């Protein structure tokens, strides 16, 4: 008997759900009915035994963000003839949607993303576990030694749950990092030492320091070879 979840709280049988916004979708060849207005990831997480969607930058307490891309799945809006990649943590459920969470294409894409993350953070347990699950042995790239995967959960928890924004994501590209806003030398009094950022971090990159404030992950530029190359180029052209 298909079940309907209302706001993830109550579970009722479909026939009792008259007037409830029910959406029917197919996930990995199984038809399910869920309440509308949620994302694929939310819907699947509430359906035990259906689908396989890993996620790193997702947390039910904060708004979806779509940064890690590990939750990528294939969906078809036209009943299963044409599929495209979407991030399950952001894509809203729709009537008649066909979702495939574990195809070869999906696994290959996730494997690639995990390889990139593992090359950045080879010592993070959560990433090592994922790497094992997806068969990534050794990244083909120069290894870094960072702990932060830049999922932004700490920043979002600080902003959305505490209403503080004592930390933020600064800079862009590979130089992006979690820091006090505008690269302030240290955290301001906006940080009340609640520890939410450390709690929510999926990789353990943030620890609480002796002063009761979090110690933010340092960006250790791991790309020594590239840096050296760039330096050499500047010397040659100047």
């Amino acid at each position, binding site marked *: 008997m298909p079940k309907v979840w209302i706001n993830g709280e109550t579970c009722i049988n479909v026939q009792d759900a008259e007037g409830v916004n029910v959406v029917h979708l197919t996930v990995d060849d199984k038809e399910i009915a869920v309440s509308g207005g949620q994302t694929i990831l939310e819907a699947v997480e509430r359906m035990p035994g259906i689908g396989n969607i890993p996620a790193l930058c997702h947390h039910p307490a904060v708004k979806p963000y779509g940064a890690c891309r590990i939750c990528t799945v294939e969906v078809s809006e036209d009943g299963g003839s044409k599929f495209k990649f979407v*991030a399950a943590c952001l894509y809203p459920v729709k009537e008649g949607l066909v979702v495939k969470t574990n195809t070869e294409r999906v696994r290959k894409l996730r494997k*690639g993303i995990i390889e990139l993350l593992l090359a950045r953070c080879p010592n993070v347990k959560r990433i090592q576990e994922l790497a094992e699950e997806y068969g990534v042995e050794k990244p083909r790239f120069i290894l870094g030694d960072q702990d932060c995967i830049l999922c932004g959960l700490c920043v979002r928890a600080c902003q959305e749950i505490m209403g503080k924004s004592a930390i933020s994501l600064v800079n862009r*590209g590979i130089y992006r990092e979690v820091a006090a806003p505008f690269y302030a030398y240290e955290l301001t009094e906006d940080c009340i030492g609640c520890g939410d950022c450390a709690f929510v971090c999926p990789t353990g990159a943030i620890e609480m320091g002796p002063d009761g404030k979090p110690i933010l992950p340092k960006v250790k530029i791991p790309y020594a070879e590239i840096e050296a190359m760039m330096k050499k180029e500047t010397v040659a052209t100047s």
Partner: protein
Amino acid sequence: MVEQVRKLLEKRAGSAAELENLRQSILDKRDTNRACISVCGGTGCRASGAEAVVDAFLDEIERRELQIQVELKETGCHGFCERGPVVVIRPKNIFYQRVKPEDIPEIISETVLGGKIIERLLYVDPVTNEKIVYEPDVPFYKRQTRTVFGANGEIDPTNIEDYIAVGGYSALSKALLQMSPDKIIEEVKKSGLRGRGGGGFPTGRKWQSCRDAEGKIKYVICNADEGDPGAYQDRSLLEGNPHSVIEGMIIGAYATGSQRGYIYVRNEYPLAVSHARIAIEQAVDYGLLGENILGSGFNFTITINKGGGAFVCGESSALMASLEGKIGEPRAKYVHMSEKGLWDSPSLLNNVKTWANVPLIINKGAEWYSRVGTAGSKGTMIFSLVGKINNTGLVEVPMGITLREMIYDIGGGIPNGKKFKAVQTGGPSGGCIPEKYLDTPVDFDELTKLGSMMGSGGMIVMDEDTCMVDVARYFIEFLKGESCGKCTPCREGLNRMSEILGRITQGKGKREDLDTLEDLAGILSGGALCALGQTAANPVLSTLHYFRDEYLAHIDEKRCLAGVCRELIQYSIDPEKCEGCLRCLRGCPTGAISGEKRQPHTINQDMCIKCGACYDVCKFNAVVKR
């Protein structure tokens, strides 16, 4: 005070009839036989010294007291930037190029007053060596269809009356007073206009979706955050004809039910910002913007917002985040921006060029508009033709023109008799198209089929001296620097691509690197959050596809066929040819060259930094690059 108010009311058009009266009175005041010197004041010509030319003209006109007989107009960009500063003397349309302030007294006395042509300032056709007198006869202009861009050379962008004189705001009056919003959207849909910013989404459908979206407040946005290397057509349009963009925006706002508009423009475009600001102020003064536009009861205001210089803010969702005062990062667009955009309200965002097309469609009708172009892409497109090409500049051509016509007929071919190698279209996320596809018609779909894209209309021509691996490295390096860093594939993937490409150009590449590059490309196109990341691998994929042999030469033979990659080339001196003139010896910055006068010189390879200075200065072709 009373006098000022009276003046303000006088020029204010409160109805369609008053706008027409105003137009007529502007035209009546003008003498079509009066000499008009039109100097290009676009940023390109300014860089070549157009401001000094304008000052010289002003001085000369004042000195000779010719203010009544001669009109001087500093217009927007004419497009032929290669030959700047460009001066056109109307009504005869005599075309002078590379004009210097010293030439001005002669131009005034000989041409403007005497009616004679100054031979040395004429444009010489590089193919026929013929001197060309009149602007429309210049091959660069002759082959173009300048429907959107044409007025640029005729109007002073800081004077709204110039725009009204060429029929400006008549489309607005028609749309507001004679057409319903649905009729307007129908017309835009029928015209087949597609977004000129890069995506090529059908404009009419976007408008419809914004009109249908529920929301009390809706926004209209003009995307002028042009950031592609080598592209500047949006800037030139906003600088040269800001009113056409504003008119398009007002029509779009009326059609979708919006009352608030934004122009998001790069801070690095000060002239565009200033011209857009003047244009908005003037449009308000003339009753064409603000409350109760042309007496229709429709209200609309436009605010200018300057961008902070991030390439990614040209992406619509990042642009809106930036407008909201947040970090300019894209968000997922599974719900379209036209339904939930700026501050979660329905938002209609179009590129500068798209907006400028709208008045044309309303004025002349969808049927007229769709006569030009191909089956899937209608109208004209403005390209910036740059790189290794004789006629650098902005060109407006009908969709469906071939690449060959653009490069050889309009662009005048490759300089110094070099051979064409590839053309890179669509900005940094576009691809490189080789010679065998030069006869492809240029439109949205055909370029995509070749692994490139239309993008915003950038077109970079490359000759035989260009190393395609180095080109791919350059664009990936650019994109890596501009990646916002939000999603893993773009942030980490581009970094790793640049790592690998850097290695290959240094001769340290391996065969497996090519597979890794292809894998990374797949991750980017499938996994990245926004369109910039999804298309970022195009430069690598297209060069790998069309120029694989160059990659292999770098990897297997450690050779750069084009002689670009510094680590793979060596300079040496041919003792047979060397005359011992000491030029290279004196020019070498590291002192790597030794030798006596009239004796063959030699290069110490350990000290050589491969800057190529010796190669450039040698008059006997004795320096050999391998």
